């Protein structure tokens, strides 16, 4: 009998130091999340498991050797950022990024060994902007893509859904899967004309064999709960019925909250509860309740903890 919800996290995630100053992707994010979960009436439903480090063998299924080498070299040389000042690093960042990517793999093993069904990886650095060969927007390794590759190669999954509700488009996930048929990337995000990273237009549906496996659902600034609920029910669910995923990965970002300045979207805390419930229903319908969620963005500390707690409540079906 597996726990209602397994959380994979680690104190070491706090060691990825983004230099202080005004950088929004800070260790306090995870501390805010921990505090909110500890205060939750459903804390006793959570089981905590530490992650293992993602082996190089799996990282290179999502990234080039060249990028791994460049990243490792930069931290060893004591550099403070890579390619762009958004991508702040410290001496430990390479190791912590490997541990961040490893959480998904740990979760997949637990799911496949039937020790867990519903897994949420509370990690940093986040991943969905990281590309094959370069870091982007605070992301170094694409945690969702590494997890998807692992699930494909180790356990033979052929139809992996990656649903991304972070307020930004997950350019790195799209570029990993847009020309293949084995992954379906669905993202709701702020319209690229107004928001980082300027990708994720609604008319991109995938290339070549991957035609029809990308679904970008951009919202105009100010977009909120009603539009998201409508998309979940009227647009996404019919697509999933058609596509029939055999594994579900969620890129769970919380920066579309109305209090979070990183996007112009206006989600309420309660919307994340609804999203959790809906995803739980998808998992019941398609994957015998199996879900792997991985934390992406969410930078407003005053609402991040409660938003994650609301999502967790939804995942628990409460």
């Amino acid at each position, binding site marked *: 009998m597996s726990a209602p919800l397994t959380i994979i996290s680690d104190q070491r995630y706090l060691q990825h130091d983004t230099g202080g100053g*005004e950088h*929004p992707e800070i260790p306090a994010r995870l501390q805010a999340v921990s505090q909110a979960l500890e205060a939750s009436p459903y804390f006793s439903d959570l089981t905590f498991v530490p992650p293992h480090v993602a082996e190089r063998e799996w990282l290179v299924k999502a990234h080039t050797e060249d990028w791994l080498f460049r990243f490792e070299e930069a931290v060893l040389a004591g550099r403070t950022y890579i390619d*762009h*000042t*958004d991508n702040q690093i410290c001496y430990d960042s390479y190791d912590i990024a490997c541990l961040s990517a490893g959480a998904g793999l740990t979760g997949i093993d637990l799911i496949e060994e039937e020790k867990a069904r519903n897994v949420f990886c509370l990690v940093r650095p986040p991943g969905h*902007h990281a*590309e094959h060969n370069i870091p*982007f*927007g*605070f992301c170094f390794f694409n945690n969702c893509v590494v997890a998807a590759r692992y699930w494909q190669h180790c356990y033979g999954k052929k139809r992996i859904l990656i649903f991304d509700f972070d307020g930004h488009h997950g*350019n790195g996930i799209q570029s990993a899967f847009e020309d293949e048929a084995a992954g379906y990337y669905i993202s709701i995000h702020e319209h*690229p*004309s*107004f*928001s*980082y*990273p*300027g*990708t994720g*237009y609604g008319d991109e549906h995938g290339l070549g064999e991957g035609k029809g496996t990308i679904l970008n659902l951009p919202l*105009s*600034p*100010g977009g909120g709960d009603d539009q998201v609920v409508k998309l979940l029910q009227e647009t996404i669910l019919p697509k999933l019925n058609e596509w029939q995923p055999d594994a579900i990965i969620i890129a769970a970002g919380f920066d579309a909250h109305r209090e979070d*300045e*990183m996007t*112009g979207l206006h989600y309420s805390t309660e919307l994340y509860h609804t999203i959790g419930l809906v995803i739980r229903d998808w998992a019941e319908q398609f994957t015998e309740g199996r879900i792997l969620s991985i934390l992406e963005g969410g930078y407003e500390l005053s609402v991040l903890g409660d938003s994650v707690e609301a999502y967790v409540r939804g995942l628990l079906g409460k």
Partner: protein
Amino acid sequence: MYISRHMTGEPITVSSAMLLPEARALLNDYQFRHLPVVDENGILLGMLTDRDLRSAYPSSVLSNSERQLVYEKVEKTTVAEIMSTDCVTLGPNSTLDDALFLFDRDQMGALPVLDEERVVGVFSIRDLTTAYKNLFGVGEKGSILIGIVDDGSPGIMTRIVTLLEEQQIPFTRLLRICGKSDGDTIYLRINTFKIAKVYALLEEEGLTVKRA
């Protein structure tokens, strides 16, 4: 800005004696919509478009027997009979702007590029949009375009650039546009995640950001 850097070079061409079924197969195979028609020296004689071909083939509203007649005729028709001969052309020294004006004026889908009279390339609307997309950085990962009200105050450009450089905010495009309906605007393509911070910095500097 020369189109020779953006065109499709050494394009597939056809002879004027080619029969329509063969030309149609070529267009289908290569998913082109425009073929230059040339003589044995590569000199332009005309352009053949998928629209010219479609109108040569029988319409679906015809009866079967009528369609058969048209088909038989098409099988024997040469490219020379349906190509357009009064072609607007570009030269190797034409610029993107020249092409934009021509496309805008003539509503064409593609133009042949000639060196002397020989066909050396085809430049399509698609090539044009790609070139301008690159020029303005549309869809460039990690960047967005923001607008600042241009109040015409002296030194406003310097203030913007100095602020961005001091704050180490990378930017790749700076456009100053006099807008008839929208007012005068300075557009800036910034490359950073921290868009709200950039807005705040610009506003602290006394500039007005045109928010969505």
